Structure formats: structure tokens, C-alpha cells
């Protein structure tokens, strides 16, 4: 868990789109048995079908996580920072129905901390990804359309930012600022800008050659108008797909920061922080690490599955235009 996946989008775009996504996630036993007789798992139809199941499972999981995170205050949960008196610390999963996930090392409700942790992680990831998306997209569109010196200069700066190891950059920013949510968001945003800028620039370069841009120019549209009213709306679908992939990377990155102690300050829960705290009792109570870790892995995978599915659908749709 100590490795940060850099939110560097092009690499995930290069990834073979035919690669069956979500290992095992979309493979229900019935389907395997049923289709196995007629088709091998590698044929297009079987793979597409498995993939569709994977996408649905991913969407379901994300709905569950986002739903509970949003409705955390309405759920019958103990406060995340209060010790549950009726249970000893590190009580196992499934011991009691009102605390299905047991308690952590201090005796606090795991279920509550998991849900509030999800809220924290999602909030940070969404805000940071939106900020990075907005800044990166504007940079990408302007440099991609204007070209020339501005493009070269900004390109060098972004490459320098990308060349920096993501975790080092994150830790540097996080250790300069105060230890709070804002600092984490700023750090992640900086990290995300180059990815968005690259994708937006690449798409803008292609779109600027299209005749509708020529049409707009021949109608007397200003450069500003062409960039943000003609080109930008065309970027929205691909940016949405990038956004999901970046969200996945940011959730991991936030977890990593919390794990190394630079994330949100305790007692506020976050998944990375929970894994960090559970480390001390790995031998006696491994569920303290595994519960948040599984949630984190599933969420990240789900974002990636949905994001890649969306990206492929868009690529396929491009041809028809």
C-alpha cells in the first residue's frame, strides 16, 4: 500500500483496452459454466459480457460507497471517535449485529469509521480531481490551440512536474503545509494537473484541425470563443473518463499520505489512516487492516473499470461522427 499510483493518465490510455478488466470481478460461476461450453473466455462476445457484468458490479459498489458516505449522518452509526463501551477493542467481524465490523484498536466502531473514512477519502479525491481537472483542462486547451512558445514553455514545466516521483512531490507539499484536508487537496491537485493538461492538449490539437473550428473562424468567432465554446464541450466526455481514473489514483494517493502520517489528522478517520493504525495489531486482529484495505481496493478498481469502459465507449463512438 506504500506505492502511489501516479495519476498519470496517458499510461492508462495506452493500456490494452482488450485486457479483461477487473480480474475475477465480473466472472460469476454460472456464466463461466454456461458459456464455457460454447465459447472460450477469450472470444469477443464472452469478454464483452463479462465486462458488462464487471461494469455493473463496479457501479453497484460505487453507489454503495458514495451512498453511505453521503448519508453517513442518517445511518444508525456510533460517532467515529467514541469508544464503544459494550465491546472490547479489536472485537472481530460479525460478533454483534449492531456493530457488524467489530471495533478498532481503541475500541471505536469500525463500521462508523469505515463510512466516515469513505466520506473523507471521497471528498478529498473529488475536490482535488475537480480542481486538477479545471486547471489542467484550461492549460491543455490554451496550449493546444495557441501552440508556439507558450505551448513549449508550459510543456516543459508540466513534464518536469510529471518527472518528479509522485509520492515525493506529495510528501513535500504535505509536509510544507499545515496538516489538514486543504493541504492534502492542494497537493493532490498539483499532482493531477499534468495528466488532464496532456489529454486536453492532445484532443485539442486534433479538434483544432477539424472543419467546424474552421467554420467558426470563418464566421468571425474569437479565439477565446473557439477554445471554450467550440472545442471544450467536445472534450467533456473524454475528460469525464479521465476524471474517473484520476479519482481512483487520488483515493490511493490519499490513503498513502494518511498511511505515512501526512494525511488527515486523527481522530478523523480515513481509509489510509485506518490501515496505518491497524498495522500494530496485524498479528492479533488482521481484519483491522483488511477491512479498509479491501474497501479501498474495491473502490479504486471500480473507478478504473467504469472509467476505462467509458473511455473505450467514447473511442468507439468517435468513428461514427
Amino acid at each position, binding site marked *: 500500500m506504500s506505492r502511489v499510483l501516479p495519476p498519470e493518465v496517458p499510461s492508462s490510455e495506452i493500456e490494452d483496452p482488450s485486457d479483461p478488466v477487473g480480474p475475477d470481478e465480473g466472472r460469476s460461476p454460472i456464466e463461466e459454466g454456461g458459456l464455457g461450453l460454447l465459447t472460450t473466455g477469450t472470444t469477443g462476445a464472452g469478454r464483452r459480457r463479462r465486462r458488462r457484468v464487471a461494469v455493473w458490479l463496479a457501479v453497484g459498489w460505487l453507489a454503495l460507497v458514495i451512498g453511505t458516505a453521503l448519508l453517513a449522518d442518517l445511518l444508525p452509526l456510533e460517532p467515529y471517535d467514541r469508544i464503544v463501551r459494550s465491546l472490547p477493542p479489536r472485537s472481530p467481524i460479525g460478533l454483534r449485529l449492531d456493530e457488524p465490523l467489530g471495533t478498532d484498536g481503541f475500541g471505536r466502531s469500525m463500521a462508523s469509521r469505515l463510512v466516515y473514512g469513505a466520506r473523507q477519502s471521497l471528498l478529498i479525491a473529488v475536490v482535488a480531481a475537480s480542481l486538477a481537472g479545471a486547471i489542467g483542462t484550461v492549460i491543455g486547451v490554451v496550449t493546444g490551440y495557441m501552440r508556439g512558445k507558450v505551448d513549449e514553455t508550459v510543456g516543459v514545466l508540466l513534464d518536469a512536474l510529471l518527472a518528479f516521483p509522485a509520492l515525493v512531490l506529495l510528501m513535500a507539499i504535505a509536509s510544507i503545509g499545515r496538516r489538514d484536508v486543504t493541504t492534502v487537496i492542494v497537493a493532490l491537485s498539483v499532482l493531477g494537473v499534468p495528466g488532464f493538461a496532456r489529454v486536453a492538449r492532445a484532443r485539442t490539437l486534433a479538434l483544432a484541425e477539424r472543419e467546424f473550428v474552421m467554420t467558426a473562424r470563418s464566421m*468571425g468567432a474569437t479565439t477565446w470563443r473557439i477554445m471554450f465554446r467550440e472545442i471544450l464541450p467536445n472534450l467533456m466526455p473524454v475528460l469525464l473518463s479521465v476524471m474517473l481514473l484520476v479519482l481512483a489514483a487520488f483515493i490511493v494517493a490519499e490513503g498513502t499520505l494518511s498511511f505515512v502520517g501526512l494525511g488527515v489528522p486523527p481522530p478523523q478517520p480515513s481509509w489510509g489512516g485506518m490501515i496505518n493504525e491497524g498495522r500494530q495489531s496485524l498479528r492479533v486482529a488482521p481484519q483491522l487492516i483488511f477491512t479498509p484495505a479491501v474497501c479501498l481496493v474495491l473502490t479504486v478498481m471500480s473507478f478504473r473499470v467504469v472509467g476505462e469502459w467509458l473511455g473505450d465507449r467514447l473511442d468507439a463512438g468517435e468513428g461514427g461522427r
Partner: protein
Amino acid sequence: MSGGNGSTDPAAALLDVRGLSVRFPTPRGLVHAVDDVSFTLETGETLGIVGESGSGKSVLARSIMRLTPSTAMTSGSVTFLGRDLGALAPRAARSVWGRDVAMVFQNPMTSLNPVMTIGRQLAEPLRLHLRSSKREARSRSVELLRSVGVPEPERRLDAYPQELSGGMRQRVSIAMAIACSPQLLLADEPTTALDVTIQRQILDLLSDLQRETHMAMVLITHDLGVVAGRARRVMVMYGGRVVETGPTESIFEDQRHPYTACLLAAVPRIEAPSHTRLAVIPGRPVDVVDPSPGCRFASRCPRAQPQCRHEDPPLRPVPERPEHSYACFFPVGSAEDRLALERHAVGDQARGG
């Protein structure tokens, strides 16, 4: 309405292009896309520009609109209603484009923005140039769509381009171009990407619109049949240069440049017996990277002489018709031409035998 090349007073003309050259630096060398082209156009007149791919006709239209890439080196002047378009500040130029001069592009599949509704795209020039309100723009858009023959215009306003057929999309781009009643329409191969049956409809539409609004039009095409009966004058381009220009009938009936003759001969005839061989022009379109002096068509010309390869033939008028000019040392039908053809044939035999 004297038209012709250089014979009119430039001040009276709607559009006056003088010595326009466009060059692109490329890794292979300097591409002379448009080489010293001049023509004038009067109010309500149609000029057909004909040439094969790479003859520079599209670049010519785009450089009139200043739509060429920033690397292009342009010289010469483009005067529209007495104003030098090339010297206009960007702001002033934008108020001319779309309002006084508009352009229709070749491919209706890509010339409309795929993520904007037809209504919004039509409203854009109206709101920009005429400062129309949203409601005015909408009702005017409906009128425009109706005038270009789009059925159910109210419903089409909320459609996206990909919901329409190619012909309908081209009608929409024409509607956009004529939204502000321009005085000049540049149509860059407006029918090339369309089915033959639709081509005719679109061309008729353009002619009708022109008759109603009295706008001038530059009709760019590689198809001589498109120009016949629609353009009053024709300009034939090859390798970035004008090789022949004149009234349409004069060009069709009595062309002087061998390239024009070859082009006309290459048009398949419906009345010809079946299995007649299609006439082709041997060789490939000329490469205009760092060209050496001489006629651009010389390498493919059936009557090329040493002189053609070393000397640029000037544009000169046909003796009895000053409007019709050509750039050839051995024009079709002349005594020199017959001599040249004979010499060529002898040369071929000598080489072959």
C-alpha cells in the same frame, strides 16, 4: 459587367485579388501552394475555380478568409469593397468574416460541431454579428432552415448534427453561411462529399439563394460539370497557378490550354458507347515543392517543348476575346501547337524505336 482579368476597375469590384501567393515551409522545401493568382469578382457574379487535388484552389479560398495556418507565407492583396482584407486588424477582420464574406466547406460531416445543437450553431453568427436576442435568433434560424429546404425546421433546431443526413448537414452549413446575408460566399467543394442526387439539389439551392439575395459566389470544384451553367466565368488552376480563365462558354467551346482540354476530355460522356475507354491525363499532379521555372503542366503535357520547361508562360488574352486568357506557348488549335504536337510525336517515335 465586363469581368475579365485585369480589365475592370478594381475599385468597382466586390472582390479583387491581386498577385496572391501562398507558400508553406515544409521539411521537404517551400511548397508554392498558390502562385501569383489574380482575379476580380463583381456583385452577384459567380466564378468557378476548377482544378484537381493539390492545384491550390482550397488554399486560395482559405487565404482569402485568412484561414491558412500561421506558418503560411502570404503575399499579394485581397481587396473586398475597397478594404484590404490582409491588412485588417483581427478585430475588424472578424466583423467582415461571417457577416460580409462567408464560407461553406467541403465536408458537412466535420464542418458542424458534433456537441452543439443545430439551433445553437445557427444562432452563433446571428448573435455575434447582428446582436440578435435569443428569441430573434431562434425565429430567424427557423426561417433560414426553411429557406435552405430543411423539413420541419422547428424540430431540427434541437437536433445534433449526427442526427441529420449528409445532405441535410450541408444545407445547415449553407444556412449558417448565409445567416447574415453575406455579399460573397466562398463555396469550397460544397458537393464533393455528397451523393450525386444530393449534389444537384445543393447546387440548385446555392443558385436559387444567389438569385434571391444577389450575393456573389466563388464555386470551387474539381468537377467541370458543376461549373457548367452555374458560373459565368471559370478559372482553371494547375499547380497553384491560373492556367486559363474566361467566360464559361468560351472555355468549354474553345479552350486554349492543353490542361483544360485534357480536363474536358476526361469528363465521361453519357452518350458515348459503353466500354469506351475513359480519357485520363497521364502522369501525376505536379509537386510544387521548390518548383523550377517553366510551365507546371509540362511534365504531363502531350505537346511540351524545351521552352515550356524553362520559361514561365505568361497569361495572355485570346486575340478576339479579351476576357479569355491562357498561359501556354503552344495553345490548342494554333499553328505552333500543331507543329509542337508533330515534333512531340516524332520525338516519341525516335525514343521508342
